[in-house]
């Protein structure tokens, strides 16, 4: 009887142990991020749904991510500045960088330091999971709200892998990327996420890679994916078409586009350390083989270069200029704080010659806010 009582108290103790851990996680969220104690707390609170798709919720905050009153990551709009919007997906929105260190913010600081005053404002209109087709639809809204002079286009390429699957399978469940939709649980444990992160840090990369491969094989089997050796040409063609449409849409609204090629962690040729991020990438998109990713990056970057030449759009070749490796990329494509700094300086170097004439006009007394560039950049 005494043993049973001890056992019961130990079980109760364990329940208390887990409950207190959950309470600690919630208090941590309240103290660190001003999060609500009750209810679920995840990145969904950053987003709202409209007729086009998911979009930033004005003033929302989740962990280190803070949106302004228009629903964009970064500070409020500053009157009188020359505005440059950064169009893209999670690489541009910023995932792993310290707050305020994502490349649009670092670029803004770099350009203002170059110009000697707070002339420029970079408005980060990117979101995780944003695709070129949705960016095209957003152009009128963005222009109306921000009145940008330039748009830096750093497109997400992986969404075209997913599109190809969508086209082949035509199922509702596969119509969006795996991370984009999330079923809402009745109880959202904040401890579980933290335990997952700790395990991710602690498990040796070889073990994590093996687990990823198992999970990838399971997903391929359960979803009956046709595994592609390389991205079909029609997807690359679709990307080309989307780029051209976006450029036309921006120009129609008087915004000058600047194209940026897509940089990755992978060295050319591949380094030994590249196999881990390559498998991580494959796990997210199991329908395309590893070699197919690298091939896709190369072909789509060629499309960006070719489109820039055909459409007379200024090009910044980040793919060729960015150094590779884990110091600069936290995973396959997302920057570390250091990487975002390098990216910002590459972009600043590319933009400065274009912005010189804009600065000259501002110095001549013409208003910058909402101004349309007529510098003939499109003829370059």
């Amino acid at each position: 009887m005494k043993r049973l009582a001890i056992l019961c108290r130990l079980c109760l103790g364990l329940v208390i142990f887990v409950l207190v851990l959950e309470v600690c996680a919630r208090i941590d969220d309240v103290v660190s991020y001003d999060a609500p104690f009750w209810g679920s707390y995840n990145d969904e609170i950053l987003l709202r749904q409209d007729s086009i798709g998911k979009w930033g919720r004005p003033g929302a905050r989740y962990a280190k991510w803070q949106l302004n009153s228009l629903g964009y990551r970064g500070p409020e709009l500053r009157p009188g500045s020359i505005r440059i919007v950064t169009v893209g997906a999670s690489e541009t929105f910023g995932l792993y960088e310290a707050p305020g260190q994502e490349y649009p913010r670092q670029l803004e600081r770099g350009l203002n330091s170059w110009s000697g005053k707070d002339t420029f404002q970079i408005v980060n209109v990117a979101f995780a999971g944003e695709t070129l087709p949705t960016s095209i639809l957003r152009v009128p809204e963005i222009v109306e709200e921000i009145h940008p002079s330039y748009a830096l286009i750093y497109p997400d390429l992986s969404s075209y892998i997913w599109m190809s699957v969508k086209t082949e399978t035509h199922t509702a469940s596969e119509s969006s990327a795996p991370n984009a939709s999330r079923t809402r649980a009745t109880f959202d444990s904040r401890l579980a996420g933290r335990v997952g992160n700790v395990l991710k840090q602690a498990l040796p990369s070889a073990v994590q890679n093996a687990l990823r491969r198992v999970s990838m094989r399971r997903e391929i089997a359960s979803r009956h994916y046709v595994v592609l050796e390389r991205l079909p040409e029609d997807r690359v063609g679709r990307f080309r078409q989307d780029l051209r449409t976006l450029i036309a849409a921006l120009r129609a609204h008087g915004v000058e586009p600047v194209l940026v090629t897509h940089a990755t962690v992978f060295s050319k040729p591949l380094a030994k350390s590249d196999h881990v991020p390559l498998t991580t990438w494959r796990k997210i998109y199991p329908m395309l083989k590893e070699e197919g990713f690298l091939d896709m990056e190369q072909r789509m970057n060629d499309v960006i270069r070719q489109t820039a030449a055909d459409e007379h759009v200024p090009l910044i070749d980040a793919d060729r200029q960015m150094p590779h490796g884990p110091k600069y990329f936290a995973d396959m494509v997302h920057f570390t704080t250091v990487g975002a700094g390098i990216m910002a300086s590459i972009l600043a170097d590319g933009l400065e010659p274009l912005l010189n004439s804009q600065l000259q006009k501002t110095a001549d007394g013409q208003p910058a806010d909402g101004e349309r560039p007529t510098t003939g950049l499109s003829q370059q």
Partner: protein
Amino acid sequence: MSSQALLYIIVLPVAWLLLWPLKSTRSRQALLLVTSYALYASWGLKFLGLLICSSVLNYGLGISLRRKQSVARLWLGIVLNVALLGTFKYLPAMAHLLPHSSLSTSFANIALPAGISFWTFQALSYLFDLYREEELDPSLLEFLLYMAFWPTVLSGPICRLSSLLPQFREILKPAAENIRHGFDRICIGLFMTALGQLLGGGLHAGQGIDGIFDGSTRGLTGPDVWCLAIGYGFELFFNFAGYTHIVIGAAYLFGFRLDENFDRPYLSTTPSEFWTRWHMSLSFWIRDYLFLPLVMLRREAWWRSLALVVSMVVFGLWHKGALLFALWGLYQGILLVLHRQWRQLQRRYEWQLPQAIMGPLSWIVTFGAICLGWVFFRARSVTQAFTMLRAAADLNKYASRTLPANLFLLVAALVLGYFGTIGSQRLLRKYSGGLTVPLEVRFALYSVAVYVGVFHMAQTQAFIYFQF
């Protein structure tokens, strides 16, 4: 959390469950040795090979010393152990003094095996004890376990075989008291380590003690230097004493009692007292195997003082072969000598202040002097250390501060909190005979400690003494 920490969390409960059904001491020792080697191997297989070689070599030297206690055999053991330590610890630090060549590059790239300073000193203490005719007769298995024992192998406490051997030979049983005490110590350790990290990292990025020491320290004022010195003294204390709590607690879970390493050192009222309360296992090692043999060589007072200074310089160099650590040791040695001289003067002239004045005054002087010494321990360069000490000595620089106010507040809060906790513990013991915590509350406290320790502590470098 690091891979190694995860491995410890998985392996130790398994080893704990497997240990108790084993009935013979040999099988228990074998299990503990396999566990220790498995855990140590996670820091590098080559390091494990080195540890085994050193263990076997010292066991052989021990047999030789047991057969015939000769100075030559003892010196052979000392030279071999110091050579091993020197190769891995001091040669890379001195490589830059050699002319640039492939050899100097190779020396510079020698990796430091985890815990080599600790287990080499354990091996040396075994040889010294044998030479002093202590009754030590470990089997090879017992000696291998002594050298690789998982709670102590990485960062001490530096145990003596005479204290561990009887415990290795005992058939221990799982006792509720040991388990409770073990978890208590682990939780205290986790809290302390987290506090140390808070001091190091600061409330805002780059505004902690480490960030400021690693950045530019030009233009610091007197209050800034004191804030950094006291802050680092507590960061180091919370970190190392926290780590020691964790390993002593973990050993308790398995029924082992390790030597204590800290005994509220910042309550000391003299430098001599401080060194009987701070990193006690190393301090006593230096006293027993270096200072006392040295001091026996001559009777003169100056020799005693010199022996004190030499011992403390060795104490400093044990941490790292760097000028700053030698200077830190020298500073501590001089403090000890000054304290001795002061006491002699007091006796000679019969100066006697009332204890109510003398006690607090001694504490303030000791606390200040010890804390100021940490500048040598933490500075990045000799220039930085002396720049900081000059700022502390410049009374004209005491009117302002350059460090953020939140760092001053953090240091003050943690220092006062620490002394407040000690004071309240004493009061509790005095008036209520100690606090009895119900099991459920205990689990809740463990939970908070685990949360703080696991989710708020950074990587392996969380423990400062791992670098030594």
